[in-house]
């Protein structure tokens, strides 16, 4: 599918999310464009992860619309939505690896389930992906034998093993040392450039935001307060955003 960069590949309109009676997100509307890194940021507890989960129907929103490539996904049946999900990779905060199987088997799951590639090609892809995230030595280990950062990197290898057009990353750099974090950002930028991958990152790590963000979406207390470029955010004169960048500049 050839997609014009100016056409949104994801459109969110009027999204509202609740946990029970508590409203977490209200009237969220924004677009995600192909081949860009979009960073969703904001203070802790502002609803960043909830937004991601609502876009991907891991949590059903109360109202609103989410379109992937122009198709409304909130009303889709499971089969159609699974077809959309096959074009999406997701890195969870803790990696979300299956504990009972090795790192290699974890990364192999999408390829084994959704392609007819030969075992040798699958193994080669897994080794390359694990090598890209610096985990070639951990290929036969169980998730319980990995550190938190390693689990996250293995989760990223699994998320990108299908070369999905869209990659969602929930706090990819949290808990990583600065060198690993920087190399992870480099990898995301390579993926964006070479595969025209759209990447949506939830983070509040300023160093990472400066490195990778093409566009930012700023949330505060469940509401969207800014959508646009990073420079635009810093010049918008919104007090919450100013305080956020001011507090983080000594990082």
């Amino acid at each position: 599918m050839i997609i014009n960069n100016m056409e949104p590949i994801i459109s969110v309109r009027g999204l509202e999310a609740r946990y029970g009676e508590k409203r977490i997100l209200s009237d969220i509307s924004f677009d995600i464009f192909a081949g860009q890194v979009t960073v969703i940021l904001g203070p802790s507890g502002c609803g960043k992860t909830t937004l991601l989960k609502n876009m991907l129907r891991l949590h059903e929103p109360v109202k609103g619309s989410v379109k992937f490539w122009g198709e409304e996904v909130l009303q889709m049946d499971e089969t159609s939505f699974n077809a959309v999900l096959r074009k999406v990779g997701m890195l969870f905060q803790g990696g979300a690896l299956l504990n009972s199987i090795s790192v290699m088997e974890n990364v192999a799951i999408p390829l084994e389930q959704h392609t007819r590639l030969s075992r040798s090609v699958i193994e080669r892809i897994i080794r390359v992906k694990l090598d890209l995230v610096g985990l070639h030595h951990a290929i036969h280990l169980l998730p319980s034998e990995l550190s938190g950062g390693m689990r996250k990197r293995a989760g990223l290898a699994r998320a990108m093993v299908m070369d999905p057009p869209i990659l969602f990353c929930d706090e990819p750099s949290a808990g990583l040392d600065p060198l690993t974090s920087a190399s992870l950002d480099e990898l995301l930028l390579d993926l964006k450039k070479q595969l025209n991958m759209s990447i949506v990152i939830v983070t509040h790590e300023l160093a990472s935001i400066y490195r990778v963000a093409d566009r930012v979406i700023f949330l505060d207390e469940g509401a969207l307060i800014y959508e646009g470029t990073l420079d635009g955010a810093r010049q918008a004169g919104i007090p919450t955003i100013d305080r956020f960048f001011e507090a983080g500049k000594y990082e």
Partner: protein
Amino acid sequence: MFTLHFENGILAVSGQLNRDNATQFQKSARLLTVKNTPNTLDLSGLEALDSAGVASIEELIAHFNPEDSQLKIIPASPDVEAVRNTFKSPVQIVDKPPQPNIFEKLGGNMEAWFQSMGEALVLCSELFYWSIVGIFDRKGQRKGSFGAQGLLLGYNALPVVALLSFIIGFILSLQSAAQLKNYGGNVFLPDLLAITLVREMAPLITAIIVAGRSGSAIASEIATMQVSEEIDALRMMAINPIRYVVVPKFHAITVVMPLLVVFSIAVGELGGFMIATSMLDLSLGTFVSRSVNIIKFKDIFISLTKSTVFAWLIVIIGAYNGFRVRGGAEGVGKATTASVVAAIFAIVIADALFSLLYLL
């Protein structure tokens, strides 16, 4: 889509190679070159690649050129080569660690068994020490924890103990009444029921219910605390986790388990009484007097003693499995299952040993 062309030793690939056609590409390339091995692989016509496409090309190169000697490669466009370079980064093959043979496994299991027995002994000694100290010195325990644990392990188990004990008493009497009636031994039903309930069924059934209900809760609570570093946090606050977490449960279950057994006997007798009056025409006075007269002090003493031992086994096994858990949420589930299975096994073995005491 891709196209393959093989002429004069040159295998030319063009078009797009991705995960949807990579397998077909490999098959086609091998079929085309089954008679003659190519000396050149021309990738200049490639328009797009993904990681599966790159992997299939690398597989093909390895197939034609195992010694990394002769095959010449004409590169693709810079954009496509960039993708190829990203996804063919030098891969270090890490072999699977060698699997132990059967003797090594057997030895390893024996060693692990002895080690776990040692750990269980250490836990037991610490637990008994702190539970005795804890009677006189409540420091190091959460305030109100004894009462809370008593409610949790004892009071909350009352409905299920009552229901099962009633049914057991009812069934025992029903089965016995049918036989006793044939021999005119109606009057012996209370004796049979009282001895069975006091000596065997009430302590055993209560212990199995508590093992399933409270033993699993103890194991999962401690295991969750272990994987979420709460146990480490207690240690770092100079608080002994056994004293703080396990001793209140140990004290509570030591008190409530015999009470539950007495309760279970009473409810079981009630279930039996219903059959005795309805099927065997026994009066309340006969039922009660025969039941009370047949039970000796030794029966009650052994019954309550073994219920206490069962209670200790449940706490010790639950705590042991909880403390040794590794590996996150999956480990918690495993520890819980292991604690219930091991506790029921230990209870049955202990019950068999106690049965020998009746011979004395």
